[in-house]
Every structure is written in structure tokens, then in C-alpha cells.
């Protein structure tokens, strides 16, 4: 494959590669780390990846907003507005989960003095 091929391939998929990259980084942090703060950071990276994925689903390179103010604009150059509305909602939800998780982390630290979930095992199966 020559260079222009790679560039044109990347132009179409770079957002998906970035989005899934972030999702996998977030998942790995959440599964491998046992420190609660690191897990919350992983959750946040995962959330960012999901938001990027949603945005890139509707994104068109060099597109414009779908407002019919200029008759010269065509449908093909308009960016899909629905995923952007979804991402706004998803960001708000992500922020509230993050806030709740951090406040729970503070309370957890008050009770146990550690944030390592491996050392907090009062509840068992």
C-alpha cells in the first residue's frame, strides 16, 4: 500500500480507531487496576471514547450544520445532528456518574482509610 492509500484509509477510519482505542484503554484500566480513583479515571476515559464514537458516527469531513439558510448547501455535506444531541445527553449523564463516584470515594476513604478495593472486602459471596 502506498502513502495516499493509507491516508485515504485513515481519513475514513481515524475517528473510529481513536474512539475504540480510548474505549479499550478505559476498559483495561477498569479491569486491571484496583485503586478506586484509577478505576474512576478509567471510567471517564471509557465515557470519552463512547462520546467520540457517537460523534464520529454522524460526522462528515468538512460538513456544515444542517440549517437550510443557504440554498446552495446540499444534503450530503450536512453533519447528522442527532448523534450530537445524544452526546450532549451522554456527557451530562457521565458527569453525574463521575460526581457520585468521587463523592462515594471520599466517603469510602473516611471509613476504611484506603482506596484499594482489594483491601476492602467485608462483603463476601
Amino acid at each position, binding site marked *: 500500500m502506498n502513502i495516499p492509500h493509507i491516508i485515504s484509509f485513515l481519513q475514513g477510519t481515524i475517528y473510529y480507531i481513536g474512539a475504540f482505542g480510548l*474505549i479499550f484503554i*478505559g*476498559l483495561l484500566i*477498569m479491569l486491571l487496576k484496583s485503586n*478506586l480513583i484509577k*478505576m474512576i479515571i478509567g*471510567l471517564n476515559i*471509557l*465515557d470519552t471514547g*463512547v462520546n467520540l*464514537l*457517537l460523534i464520529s*458516527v454522524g460526522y462528515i469531513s468538512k460538513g456544515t450544520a444542517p440549517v437550510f439558510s443557504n440554498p446552495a448547501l446540499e444534503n450530503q455535506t450536512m453533519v447528522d445532528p*442527532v*448523534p450530537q444531541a*445524544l452526546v450532549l*445527553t*451522554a456527557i451530562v*449523564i457521565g458527569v*453525574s*456518574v463521575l460526581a*457520585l*463516584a468521587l463523592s*462515594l*470515594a471520599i*466517603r*469510602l476513604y473516611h*471509613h*476504611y482509610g484506603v482506596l484499594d*478495593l482489594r483491601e*476492602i472486602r*467485608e*462483603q463476601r*459471596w
Partner: protein
Amino acid sequence: MVNPVLLIAVPLGLTFAVPLFGLISKKIIKFFPIAAFLFNLIISLLLIPTALESPVIVKIGGFPPPFCINLVAGPVGVLFSTIIALAGFLVAIYSLVYIKEGPQEKYHILYLLLLTGATGVVMTGDIFNLFVFFEILCISSYALVAYMGDRSGIESAVKYLIQGALGSSLLLIGIGLLYGLFGSLNMADLANQIQSTSSNFVFIPLFLIVTGLGVEAAIFPLNAWLPDAHSSAPSSISAILSGIAIEVGLYAVVRIIFTVFGITNFYIFFVFLGVLTLLIGEMSAFSQNNIKRMLAYSSIGQIGFIVFAIAIATSDAVTGGLFQMISHTLSKGLLFLAAGYMIIRSGSMEISSLEGMGKRMPLTSLAFTIGAFSLVGLPPFVGFPSKLLIIKSALAKEEILFTLLIGIALLATVIEGTYFFRVIQVIYFKEEKEGSNRQDAPAAALIPMFLFMILIIVIGIYPKIVTGILNSAASEFLNKMDYIRSVLL
């Protein structure tokens, strides 16, 4: 005609009125959840006759269906919203006296939000809207598990939050991929497009969405959070989490698999998963010494049984599965409410500390016993007709596999019976300790328990009251073409 939007709008409006009225008087805000769910109960009951004829479709914003968020008040939606409103109403009465500590105003706000989210999940016809309502349900239940602020509550809430948030993210990835594939978020429109596509790529969003929802529905192996969360929450919240939250999660899984994807060759996988969940839940419950953990594991078992019944996917079996959901909500709600006051009076969650409860708290013990008998499936309580229907429908398949699986399920029921009878034996046939507290639960806690008991016995003796709506609900799940047509045309 009543508009189903009110089922979501009124509790949500009252939620945000709670802090305002809290400035005037701290006493009246306690009655907001009761008012909201009494209203929802009346509206849902009024909607039942209309919904049985044809589903009520609400187009929010006035655009025709694939383009806007719509609510679908079909038999399934109305059935679930009735159950949610009923359990919410009764548990709200119980909370009047049960919730004495902590930030009460926040308790009532979160309680209203939790059940509003649950109602929204069962009513909506839009998959992203389902995600939003699901998050409302989840976030308020994370916070309510940590309500007491004690060591075990915070620890369980953290575990629940991490697992739940991971599940929600998977769900959102699945929804994003579905939108990328089909350019639509309307469940009926998606179902219509998925059945005409030949692409195998739809299995990836299916897997992500079912895994994400399965965390909240507590299907094995995604249920590690459940016993901690259900046993550390206040008992009124445990009743709601066990009776409503996991069943709403299960509703979402069934809706996605049956209606949106309609992948019939997957059902057999869920039959096995259901039986596995049932066995693991009941066997773990058997070895517990803590009464609330025992009830929580028993919920896992019941969810497994419901998954098994629904995945058989015949008309009778789905009816039986939905009937089992009603019976589980009523029985497990009653058990948690009764256990809540037993724990307060004895000061411990150990089963051994319940000795002599039959003399010390006769009415609460009676409630616990009836709940246990109903859950195990003894006549004349509601658990009997529902379990009988599932067993009959599994045998009607006339396949050796299903006969074998129903044998395993019956074995699990025997285990369930054993540990419940062990508790009942401790309650009635052990001598009480000297100087123990002989006070029964207060009236405001006994009234909802009695209403639950009356419902358990009445529906147990006359199952015909609910079979009409259950049959229509089962056929709504099984005939996805009817659902698509009623929404899109």
C-alpha cells in the same frame, strides 16, 4: 382518554417540587411519593382497557414515529407501570415510619426519581430514551444503596456503581453502533430494518446491549453487585431494588431480544443461562446466615427462573414468566418489608437473632411467613399459579431437554423451600431470649404489608384477574410484527 405522558411527567414534576416544599415544611414532603404513585396507579389502571384494545402511541413533539421520541403504552408497558406504581405506593407508605435517620428530603427525591426512571424504561419506544431513563434509575439506586452512609453501604454502592457504569457504557456503545448501522433510534423502526438485513454485524450491538442491560437485570455472571447492594440498602429500598429495578432491567433485555432483534435461535442460550442463574442463586442463598443476603440471593434465583420461562418463548411460558414477575414483586416486597422491622427490633441481621419472633412480633412474622410461602409456590398464594403455569408450559414442549431442565428448576425450588422453612422454624419454634423487645411494627408499616398479603392471596385464589393482561402482554412480546405495525402505521 388518559395520556400516558402523565405517568412520567407527574412523578418527575413532584420530584423537583420536593426541595421547594421542603423549605416551607419538612413534614409534607414525606407524602409526595405516596401522592405521585397513587396517581400513577390510578392512571395505569384506567389505561389498561384502552391498551388491551390497541397500544396507545404518544408522539412527543408531534412528528410521526421514526423521527421523534414516542411512548408506547401497550399491554406490556401498562402492566409494568401498574406493578411499579403499586409497589412504589405501598413501599412509600412503609417509608413514612421506616426512614427516620439521614437526609430524608434526599431519600424522597431519589425514591421518586428511581421509580420515574423505571416507569420511563417500560413506556418508551425509543432506544436512546430507554438508556436515559435507565441511567436515571441506576444513578438514583447507587445513591440510595449508600443512603445510610455506613461502611457496608458505601462499599456496596461503590461496587454497584463501578459495575453499573461499565454496563451503561457498553449499552451506549451498542446504541451508537446501531444508530451508525440503521440511522434510527426508534425501536419499532430498528426492528423493521433489522429483520430485513442480512448483515451479521448486528450481533455486535446485540451482544453489547444485552451485556450492558444484563448487569442491571442481574443475569449470571453479571450479578456480583446484587447481594451486597440489596443487603446494605435500607429495607424499603431493598424491596424496590429486588421487586422493581431488576425486573425493569429484565424487561429491557426481553424487549431488546424479542422485539428489536428477534433472534430466535438465541433463546436456547438464555434457557440454560436462566437455569444456571436459578441454581447458583438458590444454592448461595441456602448457605447464608444473614437474612437480607439470603433474600437477595433468592432474588437472583427468581430472576433466573423468570429468564428460563421467558426464553422458552411459547405463549404460555411468556405469560408464566410475566406472572412470576408479578408474584416475585409482591412476595419479595413483602419479605423485605417484614424483614426490615424484624431487623430493627432484634438489632441484628443474623437469622439466629430472629428466635421467638412469632411471639414478639406476631403480625410481622405472619407477613414474612406468607411472603415466604408465596415465593416458594405453595397454594393458595400467588406463587403457586405462576410456577404451575411455567412448569406446565415447559412440559408442553414435550422435549427431553425441557423436562430435564424443569426437573433442575424444581430441585432449586426445593432448596428454596428448605432455607425459607428453616427461617420460619427459627421464627416460630425457637424460644425467645429473656428481656427481648416485644413491640410489633407500627401501623403505617403494617398497612402496606397487609395490602401486599391481601393481593398475594386474592391473585393466588383468582388468577383470572391478571391473566387477561398477561396474555396480551405475552403476545406483544411474541408478535413483533404487531408492535412494529402499531407504532409505524
